[in-house]
């Protein structure tokens, strides 16, 4: 019988023969990373383990992005730990402020995670890199410490659910809408412990930026990871970035899937996930009119250049509503610079938006856009749990950059079609 792309990647990274779903294996890791929240605990455990060095100085990444640039003294102390550890153990991929970006946007951009890789990140949105055709999983700090010491990770070979998207996308419908729609169909634990393989003509027609958005939110359906088979668009993206050789894997036509779910996208409208779960999704036509206090455009989900271009297209010549705070956060320095060169930042500032240096900041209620009691945000981020962006009695509505931009102008959840 044939194999899925994930089964092929894992087979190539373990000594176990005839790998089967459910087997517990030790897999060799191509790249491992952590951030200023998860690394400090891992650093402590790594030092206690007796390891003299990390498994490979080129294959470990430390990215202070969550509460960085440092939001307070405690965060500063955590970020300092990363810097000192990187110096002490000669870790090459430490990204200081000014070079730093939101980890899941930064690592693919720098060519540090590649097709066919096993990637382990101490952050749940590590699945983002699955868009490159890598097996990328989020873990906790102890797991990351173990990978730094041993260069391998224990894991259970997961089964795969294949999603096939067909039809024609309506205007303003993006990768974000497809993944929100998919999560609403299967629920927030619909893919628990499993892989979501995204495929079909619609996926093949999407840019890398949109593919990253889709894989990014596989975790919101509980998935171990999301993955997309590499194609010409992937190779074009990798060109000039890859820092080492890599391997392309594809699923066999007779591969075994736990389930195959076919989705026709032709009738899907832009989606909005209501509080307090990403599965509480409604089409924009049923979400219009909800008054908002804040609009966030950014994050590992939607802080890439394509997202900023769409937001700028809608915001050009417009004014942000007088009662709304629009905060735009390019996910990396390169994206930020590109946005400046294309004139997007000028559009945002002229419209009355605030633009920030890369940070995860508001997405997880860190800083740079915290909600007060009773306030509501529309956000291009990935979670809308209770208290996620601030006060436990605040609310987050998840949507695409197009919806977030239109809503910022009109002061209520709105479609770009309504912007005159």
């Amino acid at each position, binding site marked *: 019988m044939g194999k899925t792309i994930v089964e092929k990647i894992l087979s190539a990274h373990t000594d176990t023969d005839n790998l089967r779903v459910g087997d517990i294996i030790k897999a060799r890791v191509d790249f491992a990373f952590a951030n200023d929240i998860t690394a400090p605990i891992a650093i402590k455990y790594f030092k206690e383990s007796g390891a003299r060095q990390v498994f490979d100085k080129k294959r470990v990444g430390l990215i202070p992005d969550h509460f960085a640039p440092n939001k307070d003294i405690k965060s500063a102390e955590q970020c300092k730990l990363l810097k000192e550890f990187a110096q002490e153990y000669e870790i090459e991929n430490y990204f200081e402020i000014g070079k730093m970006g939101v980890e899941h946007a930064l690592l693919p951009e720098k060519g540090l995670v590649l097709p066919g890789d096993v990637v382990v990140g101490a952050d749940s949105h590590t699945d983002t890199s699955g868009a490159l055709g890598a097996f990328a999983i989020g873990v906790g700090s102890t797991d990351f410490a173990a990978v730094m010491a041993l260069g391998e990770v*224990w894991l259970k070979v997961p089964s795969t659910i294949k999603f096939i998207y067909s039809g024609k996308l309506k205007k303003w419908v993006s990768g974000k809408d497809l993944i929100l729609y998919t999560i609403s169909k299967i629920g927030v634990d619909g893919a628990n412990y499993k892989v979501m393989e995204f495929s079909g003509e619609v996926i093949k027609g999407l840019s890398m930026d949109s593919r990253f958005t889709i894989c990014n939110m596989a975790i919101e359906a509980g998935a171990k990871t999301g993955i997309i088979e590499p194609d010409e668009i992937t190779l074009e993206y990798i060109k000039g970035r890859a820092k080492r050789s890599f391997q392309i894997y594809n699923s066999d036509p007779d591969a075994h899937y736990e389930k195959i779910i076919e989705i026709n996208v032709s009738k899907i409208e832009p989606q909005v996930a209501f509080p307090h779960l990403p599965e509480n999704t409604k089409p924009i036509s049923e979400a219009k009119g909800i008054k908002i206090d804040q609009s966030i455009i950014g994050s590992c989900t939607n802080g890439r250049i394509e997202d900023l271009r769409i937001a700028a297209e809608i915001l050009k010549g417009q004014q942000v509503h007088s009662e709304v705070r629009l905060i735009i956060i390019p996910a990396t320095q390169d994206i930020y610079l590109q946005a400046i060169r294309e004139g997007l930042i000028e559009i945002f500032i002229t419209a009355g938006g605030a633009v920030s240096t890369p940070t995860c900041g508001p997405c997880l209620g860190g800083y740079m856009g915290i909600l007060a009691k009773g306030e509501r945000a529309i956000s291009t981020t990935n979670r809308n749990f209770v208290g996620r962006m601030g006060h436990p009695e605040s609310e987050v509505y998840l949507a695409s950059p197009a919806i977030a931009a239109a809503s910022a102008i009109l002061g209520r959840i709105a479609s770009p079609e309504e912007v005159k």
Partner: protein
Amino acid sequence: MIIKGKVWKFKDNIDTDVIIPARYLNTSDPKELGLHCMEDYDSEFVKKINQGDIIVAGRNFGCGSSREHAPIALKAAGVSCIIAQSFARIFFRNAINIGLPIFESVEVVDQCSPGNILEVDTVQGVIKNLSKDKVYKTNLLPEFILKVISVGGLREYVKEELKRREKNV
């Protein structure tokens, strides 16, 4: 190990932002994290819970972020064991890796009420509801995971593995 404790019952989809809100993630001190455990769900939870109590929850417990601070906060607050209908996968790993016993059982969760006293044999996977006089058998953990637990968690496993590799060089 035998654990005995009082049940605190929770609904489906208890996420890591509720278990330990991100505003407290600028520290990794277990004591401090424990003080804010479940604060946005029930601000009195930490005051009400006793050392050794057991959390019983619905589906997808621990969904969301990969923060190991979530099981650390629960453990520091006094939670000795979690039994849920299902766990989100990263939380499941993290709990095992830090040595917080967790079990999946739809039956136990369905049939137990808040305040019940449970007795859990973590090695045999046997859960007794002493208040209702019922005994349940859960699935045993896979061999490798049992090995990790038996040496005292993933941190100890790594130490042993490093020593083994050094000898083989």
